[in-house]
């Protein structure tokens, strides 16, 4: 999948889950039971959906389809991580998909496949709030700085 569009993100996975008749909360657990993942070959979400429809008609089990999508997304995320230049240490998943255990497992697998096994990908129960937490903490920092500057200007 490409890094340019939404093909590897939450909304796409939600659409596929709806098509497969799987609840969003079930995706992670099902994906982890897959024995023979079927990789999605398309580079775009629209074509990937067609791929999934073909898989369903070929009788591929739901868990193998979901794991295939997770692996495609994970390989895209590993490429993103490589750009940061980090080769070891802890990397935190944030955003709505951070709680998808299937994606986390697929990401660990892809990190090993892509020979960046030094990176340890982890999630946090409150991962979805990371952006809001950062904004609140930067807000406090900026408030203190502004006060300091005002104090200096008055003096």
């Amino acid at each position, binding site marked *: 999948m490409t890094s340019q569009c939404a093909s590897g993100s939450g909304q796409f996975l939600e659409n596929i889950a709806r098509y497969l008749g799987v609840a969003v909360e079930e995706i992670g657990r099902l994906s982890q039971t897959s024995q023979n993942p079927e990789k999605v070959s398309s580079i775009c979400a629209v074509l990937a959906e067609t791929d999934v429809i073909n898989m369903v008609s070929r009788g591929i089990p739901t868990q193998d389809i979901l794991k295939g999508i997770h692996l495609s997304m994970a390989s895209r995320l590993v490429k993103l991580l490589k750009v*940061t*230049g980090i080769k070891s240490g802890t990397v935190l998943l944030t955003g709505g998909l951070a709680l998808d255990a299937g*994606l986390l497992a697929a990401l660990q697998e892809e990190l090993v496949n892509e020979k960046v096994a030094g990176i340890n990908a982890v999630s946090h129960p409150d991962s*979805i709030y*990371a952006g809001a937490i*950062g904004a*609140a903490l930067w807000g406090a920092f900026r408030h203190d700085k502004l006060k300091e500057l005002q104090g200096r200007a008055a003096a």
Partner: protein
Amino acid sequence: MIHTIGIDIGSGAVKTVLFRSGADKPQWLAKRCERIRRRDPMELARQSYDEVLAEVKLAPDDVAYTATTGEGENVKFATGHFYTMTTHARGGVYLHPEARAVVDIGALNGRAPST
């Protein structure tokens, strides 16, 4: 000691948190996460803002800074806006102090800021 609110408007959900900051480690007092589901994100931001304040029995005047991130540039009652990369990196380090990078997987995007 000051209170600050962070509002992260994403493509799938609006996340709001309330913090108390001072000399010690910041204290996380309240949080809200609302899926947008074809509603107006600005309305949801306002609603979540009121709810977190009500939860800890504070008034808008008690909040020193209301910071937005994500697609929250146009939130009228905000004090300032921060870029997504910096807020996710900062939030990631708060949740997991050893984290060296953050992989943000949103509803319509993916990004990986290093901390």
